[in-house]
């Protein structure tokens, strides 16, 4: 079966979700583009958008219409070539509208799982629950007479477990998009010892056509991205807790401080607690639960996360993409308050910020905001200068930041030592492209 033949019937499970909708969009566009090639004239391409919620599927179709238009507008030059023989399509308006129709005609929104029984590939983006994944895959495989392949978007479940339990015989591969899939260029590709070569070949071709950066990760729970982020997050929580008891401060204040340290001092796009909110406090706990049994030498658990979830504070995003409140409370996407789990209320930054910031001491003047580093050519020089200055600064802020940077490196090195990542560069690529860090965790800035 050629690449295009394989692509002719695809299903996405969890298609209306945060990750599923992005995967669906990219796949629909890829299928449409292939269908428009002269050699594929007359062939039918079908993309089943499967989800449990009719309501969410309706929203998905609206999302697709808007996003496909944006994509079409950017490739109008190519579309004019593709539609050169369509005399009825003259203006960009006509051509872009036609392309949107082409893409949407491929997509079949449905709540019926049976649609996947005729697919060549099933992309899975349901909850991070191994048993659910296994159940769905088993069911589809049983009813699908084809040699169906499964691409799971899991960010933590070891692929070989799914392969074994669902008796996939090498037909499953980890294809982990980063959020949001339509924008983030990173994909972690996880094959097992069993994964068929043709599945891997297809995965690389598909990723290439989607213009993704592929980092292969070995099949250990959490892979590279969550392998780093989860531990990095736990370090943030631990540091906040230690600081609270040492300085006799309420925990919410130290959460605020560690969030600040991990953002401003480590020059990251967001602080660690904001990132945990972005991912979802509940999702984080879920992933930790998946990872924990497979990691013998560490305790990947946080009582604070349990407390938060018990209190109903979960973070995550609204379907509009707006941030839900979690460790922090948001106004227009900006954190303005922090959750006090003791008194079960949010405390405005403004009530304690100045006094808390004083504890950290002054930031060296050579600090640069993360955003300014995006287009910097002499990043290394700038970072060296700042972190060297930090090393000679005797403040609480500098101590916490340096410890954070060191821990981050340690986590990165452990991923290589444990053979989760093939090399240090892969770890750095994941953190640079998947998490938009300004510098990779494995560096010499903190030595």
């Amino acid at each position, binding site marked *: 079966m050629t690449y295009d033949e394989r692509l002719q019937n695809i299903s996405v499970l969890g298609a209306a979700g945060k990750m599923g909708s992005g995967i669906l969009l990219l796949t629909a566009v890829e299928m449409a583009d292939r269908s428009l090639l002269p050699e594929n004239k007359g062939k039918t391409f079908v993309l089943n958008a499967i989800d449990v919620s009719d309501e969410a599927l309706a929203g998905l179709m609206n999302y697709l219409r808007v996003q496909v238009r944006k994509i079409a*507008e950017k490739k*109008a*030059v190519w*579309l*004019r070539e593709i539609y050169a023989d369509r*005399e009825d399509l*003259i*203006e*960009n*308006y006509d051509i*872009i509208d036609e392309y949107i129709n082409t893409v949407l005609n491929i997509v079949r929104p449905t709540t019926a799982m049976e649609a996947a029984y005729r697919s060549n590939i099933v992309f899975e983006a349901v909850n991070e629950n191994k048993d659910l994944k296994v159940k769905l895959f088993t069911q589809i495989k049983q009813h699908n007479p084809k040699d169906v392949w499964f691409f799971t978007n899991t960010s933590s479940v070891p692929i070989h477990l799914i392969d074994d339990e669902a008796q996939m015989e090498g037909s499953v591969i980890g294809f982990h998009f980063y959020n949001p899939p339509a924008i983030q260029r990173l994909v972690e590709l996880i094959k097992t010892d069993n994964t068929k070569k043709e599945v891997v070949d297809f995965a690389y071709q598909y990723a290439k056509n989607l213009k993704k950066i592929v980092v292969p990760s070995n099949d250990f729970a959490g892979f590279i991205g969550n392998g780093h982020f989860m531990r990095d997050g736990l370090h943030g929580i631990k540091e906040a807790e230690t600081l609270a008891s040492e300085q006799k401060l309420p925990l919410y204040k130290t959460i605020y401080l560690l969030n600040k340290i991990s953002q401003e001092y480590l020059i990251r796009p967001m602080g660690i607690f904001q990132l945990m909110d972005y991912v979802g406090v509940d999702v984080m706990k879920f992933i930790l639960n998946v990872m924990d049994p497979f990691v013998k030498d560490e305790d990947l658990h946080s009582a604070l996360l349990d407390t938060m979830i018990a209190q109903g504070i979960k973070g995550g995003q609204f379907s509009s993409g707006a941030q839900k409140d979690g460790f922090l409370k948001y106004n227009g996407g900006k954190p303005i308050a922090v959750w006090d789990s003791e008194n079960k209320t949010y405390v405005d930054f403004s009530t304690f910020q100045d006094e808390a910031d004083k504890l950290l001491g002054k930031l060296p003047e050579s600090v640069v905001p993360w955003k300014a580093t995006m287009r910097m050519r002499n990043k290394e020089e700038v970072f060296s200068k700042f972190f060297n200055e930090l090393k000679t600064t005797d403040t609480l802020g500098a101590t916490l930041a340096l410890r954070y940077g060191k821990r981050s490196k340690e986590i990165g090195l452990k991923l290589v030592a444990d053979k989760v990542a093939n090399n240090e560069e892969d770890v750095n690529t994941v953190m640079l492209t998947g998490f938009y860090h300004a510098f990779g965790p494995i560096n010499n800035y903190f030595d």
Partner: protein
Amino acid sequence: MTAGYNTVSLGTGRKEFNPRKARPGIEHYIKEAGQGVLTQIGGAQNVDESVIGNFMAGRFNKQGHLDGFIPMIDKGLSMKPAVRVEGACASGGLSLVTGIRQVLAETSEVVLSMGFEVQNTVKAIYGADILALAGWFQKRKKGHAYFFPGQFSDRAGAYYEKYGYEPSRKGMARWYANAIENARLDPTAQEYHNTNPDPYATALKMQPNGKTFVDHLTVLDCSKVSDGASGIAICSEEGLKRIGVDKKDAVEVMGFGHAVRDITTDPTDLTELETIKFAAHQALENAGITIDQLGTVETHDCFSIAGILAVEALGLAAKGKGADYVAAGKTSRNGELPFNTTGGLIGWGHPTGGTGVHQAVTIWQQLTGKAGDAQIKINEDKPYGLTINMGGDDVTVTSIVFKRGE
């Protein structure tokens, strides 16, 4: 002509421009520019009739019947004649020559001449469709997604092939740099806020890329998408007395040219702007002057290559030598013959239907010493100013020779 007025040319580059926020509509621009003229000429009662030039409000703004907006400027314009004229990007120039003809025909003593376009209502990819209507629609299908950049990219490509890529690009980069440097001196210019320390280097470094845009032009070779309006009063001597403006504060129309080429045919020579050549020389001839008597020129640089080809069409440089002429700084504000002293279409902006009138306003400002920071020195032996306004791919051209009144 006297009492010129330009609104800001709004679009990318202006600090106040935010594509996500609501912006003023055509009513705002027409009103501002119209009232800007009326306050300088003693009010609407002094106007006999009005002409308004616009290219594509029917699609950019879904509005036709534009002469109906003239009385909105001022009640005093109600129950008076008004007409809308259209000749693509030469609509503004048509507004001027229509007014001039009315005065020459002695049917009016004072004509309010205006031009406007509000284009930021659609994204550039759709704006390209709308602007493409300045070409022959039967050629649209085979044209580039960005139709007009595509047309002039073909002209630039032909020029590179004939006369060499490097020298051509140097001329075009200098053209861009001049536009930016001049625009920074005019607060209404779209590139007024441009702070690039070395626009020449930026333009020279940027290479055309057919995969992302067109084959032979970069975005810096192109005029911008603009919202704006301009207005000016066209008066007879009697009219000037009526509005109480001193001749020294007005410019005299010494001659004009107006010609149209068959839109359904391709240019005979891609490296020549034949209609511009014809109309500009007609204007000079009618004015009874020679090219060396010009003190400044406002030419239609919708693309940098159009600026260079206009230099050649005027005969300032031989064919193929226009780029060198520009590269040598001869068209810069301190050069032999300053061109586009408030930035032209690339620097000031190109609200398509308004551009022709904007050019006349700039010449009026320069010749009467009202150009503010953008003022150039007008020498006594070169007292004339020239405008060249082009619609489509060298299809409709108006050209006017001006001199300060005395």
